[in-house]
């Protein structure tokens, strides 16, 4: 059996069938409406639970990395294991000299990273607006050739300070696009990824004056 992950399908098909069937014969319209409503509410709860589990794992991963690992690697694990993206790069941003610096990457060629190291349109829009930019919501004419394979440019922002951007390129083949849970995890990373990077940086500077 080959199974593909899908964060939105948290309720099993058998459960739905069991709930909508009736051993004593066909359900009345009223019974059917009540059961459908129950299923809908149950699905909402399960979806939320699914999200909270993943947010907890993401948060725990960041905190553990602060203690005994590398925050960038922890962010990479979140992208790979929870979102399904193993082609990504993280650039720090220095607002004083308006420069990006590559801090971490996975699955990317040096040539591609070089193209992004000076910043691209989507990266500048990300830091300029302070908002995550998604490739499928961009005006095609504003995209640079190297941005064709970019899926998202995620802002890393702590309070109002822009710390950097995470560039997400190809998603895993079994992922057709971002799902609701993915957007929430990216939202979490926008703030807590940035805070954790800042904290690790402060700690490093404290031990190596």
């Amino acid at each position, binding site marked *: *059996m*080959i*199974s*593909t*992950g*899908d*964060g939105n*399908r*948290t*309720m*099993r098909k058998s459960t739905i069938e069991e709930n909508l069937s009736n051993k004593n014969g066909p359900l009345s319209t009223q019974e059917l409406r009540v059961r459908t409503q129950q299923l809908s509410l149950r699905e909402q709860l399960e979806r939320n639970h*699914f999200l909270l*589990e*993943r947010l*907890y*794992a*993401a948060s*725990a*991963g960041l905190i*553990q990395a602060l203690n005994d690992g590398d925050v960038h690697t*922890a962010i990479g*694990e*979140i992208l*790979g*294991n*929870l*979102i*399904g993206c*193993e082609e990504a790069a993280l650039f720090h941003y220095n607002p004083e000299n308006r420069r990006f610096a590559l801090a971490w990457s996975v699955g990317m060629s040096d040539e591609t990273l070089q193209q992004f190291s000076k910043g691209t349109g989507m990266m500048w829009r990300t830091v300029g607006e302070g908002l995550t930019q998604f490739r499928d919501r961009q005006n095609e004419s504003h995209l640079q050739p190297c941005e064709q394979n970019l899926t998202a440019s995620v802002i890393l922002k702590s309070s109002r300070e822009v710390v950097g951007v995470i560039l997400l390129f190809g998603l*895993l*083949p*079994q*992922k057709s696009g971002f799902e609701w849970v993915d957007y929430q995890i990216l939202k979490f990373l926008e703030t807590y990824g940035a805070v954790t990077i800042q904290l690790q940086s402060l700690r490093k500077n404290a031990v190596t004056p």
Partner: protein
Amino acid sequence: MASKKILLVDDSCTARLVNRMIFSQKSNYELISAVDGKEAVERARQDKPDLILMDIMMPRMTGLEACRAIKQDKTTSGIPVILLTTRGEESYVQEGYASGCSDYLTKPVNDAELLDLLRAYLGE
């Protein structure tokens, strides 16, 4: 009756944590873990789990290498191994089965599908 024991092998603490939460909340399986293939082979010999759920890309020894080693050892060859990986393409799947795995799951893991698969091997 003693609960069934699953050996979870993944170098990512995020992945281990997600799986631990799924098992603790939704099943009665006992979970033990290892962080790479080498440790997995040792723990399989030592702890004799009922099933092994193992990532492929890991340091020291990959999941494929570990699966081969587990299947070549008479004391562990009967343990079903489910490979857990990000790569779902046909060539990767074939390589997985060639290593002797019983099944193949792709990440990100879906709770219900994972539990359904485990129940197919281990029961409730």
